[in-house]
């Protein structure tokens, strides 16, 4: 009697294990079920081996597919009209690539990647900027720029990163940032056979490094260099034209009063761009992003206010809301209505669009006529 109970319990546990293993999102459920059936017959250890075999088979398939995709891609690249001989050559860089990712790990790819998943919005933006957007087979759920990225299957990212979901897309390469993802996730993905590269840009120089690194990984060194040169040119132009001497101040509002004020302090992209424009961030004494006191904003009396609050189409717009705040009527920026609402994350993501954001801020501070 006791034995039967025990047996029933064991069978129930095994069944639920099998169910959990098949209930994932890998999409290769038939194989998994077969593997699970075998596993049930044998021990847990052999189950692992079977699973590994399945993965290997899948990997072999992927390589074959990749080869095809690669040929297609290079055909496309050579067909692309109007492109110079050099740039089509840039698209055809092949052979092994070695880079050092931004956590200092050396990474070698047999050849430039053709199936990529990028979890961070900025990395997606960089891929598109260097013309490698078509290699994306998956993106993090918050990646929203450019519009074409929305057609690519979304996967969960951040703390909810779903490893199975990513493996199902069979990427050769996964790009993620050190800030929103964890090292455990990287280790798990690498154990599952996906090459992980980590980007971690803290300042504009770091963005250049990230672009260069991703360019190399995709075999698009030259496009990457072009993007970087373009950014550098815009920044240089703006910096040269800016006449500010740091006497005017700007307040960056990241979260509105209703939810508690947040600002971007020192060592943020906004701060860096403000310095470039010769405008002083009035919360330069705050390190990184921080919740700040409303009284301090009034006291520091900024000449300009930039808010990144989204407008959902109901109630007052972010500008109107700031203009209508009680007690803010004496703030210079409010008096002069010098408020800019930048809603597309241009100045909060380590991506090539930082240059666009800097230009918008320049136009806002110095007037569009100055251009």
């Amino acid at each position, binding site marked *: 009697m006791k034995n039967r109970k025990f047996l029933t319990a064991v069978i129930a546990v095994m069944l639920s294990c099998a169910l959990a293993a098949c209930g994932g999102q890998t999409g290769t459920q038939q194989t998994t079920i077969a593997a699970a059936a075998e596993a049930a017959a044998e021990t847990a250890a052999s189950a692992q081996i079977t699973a590994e075999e399945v993965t290997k088979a899948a990997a072999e398939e992927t390589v074959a597919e990749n080869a095809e995709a690669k040929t297609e891609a290079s055909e496309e690249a050579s067909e692309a009209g109007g492109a110079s001989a050099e740039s089509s050559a840039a698209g055809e860089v092949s052979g092994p690539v070695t880079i050092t990712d931004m956590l200092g790990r050396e990474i070698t790819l047999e050849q430039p990647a053709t199936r990529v998943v990028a979890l961070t919005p900025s990395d997606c933006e960089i891929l598109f900027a260097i013309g490698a957007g078509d290699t994306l087979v998956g993106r993090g759920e918050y990646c929203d720029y450019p519009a074409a990225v929305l057609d690519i299957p979304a996967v969960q990212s951040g703390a909810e990163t779903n490893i199975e979901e990513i493996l199902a897309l069979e990427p050769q390469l996964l790009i993620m940032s050190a800030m929103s993802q964890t090292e455990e996730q990287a280790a798990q993905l690498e154990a599952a056979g996906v090459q992980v590269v980590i980007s971690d840009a803290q300042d504009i120089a770091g963005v250049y490094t990230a672009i260069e690194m991703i360019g190399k990984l995709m075999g698009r060194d030259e496009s990457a260099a072009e993007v970087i040169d373009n950014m550098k040119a815009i920044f240089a132009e703006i910096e040269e034209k800016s006449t500010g001497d740091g006497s005017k101040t700007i307040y960056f509002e990241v979260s509105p009063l209703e939810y*508690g004020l947040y600002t971007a302090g020192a060592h943020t992209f906004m701060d860096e761009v403000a310095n470039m424009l010769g405008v002083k961030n009035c*919360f330069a004494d705050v390190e990184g992003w921080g919740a700040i006191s*409303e*009284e301090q904003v009034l006291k520091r009396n900024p000449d300009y206010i930039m808010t990144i609050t989204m407008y959902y189409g109901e109630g007052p717009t972010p500008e109107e809301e700031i203009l209508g705040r009680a007690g803010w009527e004496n703030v210079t920026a409010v008096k002069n209505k010098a408020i800019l609402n930048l809603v597309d994350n241009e100045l909060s993501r380590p991506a090539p669009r930082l240059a666009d954001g800097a230009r918008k801020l320049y136009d806002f501070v110095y007037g569009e006529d100055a251009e």
Partner: protein
Amino acid sequence: MRSRSGRFSFIEFVIFVAVTFAVFCLCVCIGSVSIPLTDTLSVIWDGVRYHLGRLGMAVIQVVSGSGAEAVGGAGTVPGGVSATVESTGAVISGGNGVLASWLAAKPEGLQASIILSVRLPRVLCVAMTGAALALAGGAMQGLLKNPLADGSTLGVSSGAALGAVIAIAFGVRFPGLPFAGTMVMAILFAFLSLVLILTLAYRLDYSLATNTIILIGVIFSMFVSSLMNIIVTFAADRIQHITFWTMGSLQGASYQNALVLLGVLMLCGGMILRRAQELNAFAIGEDNARHIGVDVRRVKLVILIMVSGLIGVCVSIGGSIGFVGLVTPHIVRMLVGPNHRRLLPASLFGGAVFLMLADLAARTLLNPIELPIGVVTSLVGAVVFVVIFYRSRRRS
């Protein structure tokens, strides 16, 4: 009965009011931007004068307007009456002149903005939020005879927060009334979660035994927090707003908020305070209360509804602030004893003082950075609670 176990004596009342007022003044005078005491006082005095003057002017205008009407309509009335009306008019215009000379100009400048538009409404809201939460906690603890009872353990706070999050995520707004969307939804959901918890509790246990309610409250809180996560997943574009909101902030509190809090405190708080005697009966036991003629279910229902009203408004204005409702009544009980006729009003003042001081710390400690108030209340509250608990246990 000894005088000690009766109601609040006049002197005790004066002491509590004085302490609360002193802390209130302290919190208005100290802030992230330091402003000299004399300037603070003069700005407040000017503000009060300005608003009183405007109020007076408005009253006079209404009165003299009706007076003029009376004069206009007095054509057929005998001369004597119209003379009286005229003399009243003269008196009014005289009063107008006196008022005009007393009337201060609207206080302006940085200091006036900071004190009158930022600090004063915030401290007012903080004080009343603290009072409301502590009163709600004290009433809950007495009613359920459970030292762990609080708006948060009962699930009312979570319910209110869910309502507010839904309002933010799906953009529930009422035209012309800022904040009204989150507030109405928070109160509504506080009530709804209360009804749900009570219905479930009634089904399981008709007498609403304390353990049943607390257990259901805890389970409900967990259920609600997972619902909130689901909503956040759906409204990914507003995740930032929701995250900031759930951390709780009394920044940007306005006089309108203070007025709403005052109204709720007078209505719901008053109702709870009037039930203090019944709560005493509950403290001995539900059966005891029933035997001495307390309508147990009715009193329970009234108090639970009033508590959810208080908590709904507090949550919609300041987010979920933990520990105030739980700790304050315990601290206060050590000062004034367990009689609810003394405990409840003392909790009211104690909660106000505690939250004002916590907010002061949140505002000034890491200047110019501001801490979430919930962090301070939990940190300070937990330590204070342990110290007091330890000492009282050792003594006994």
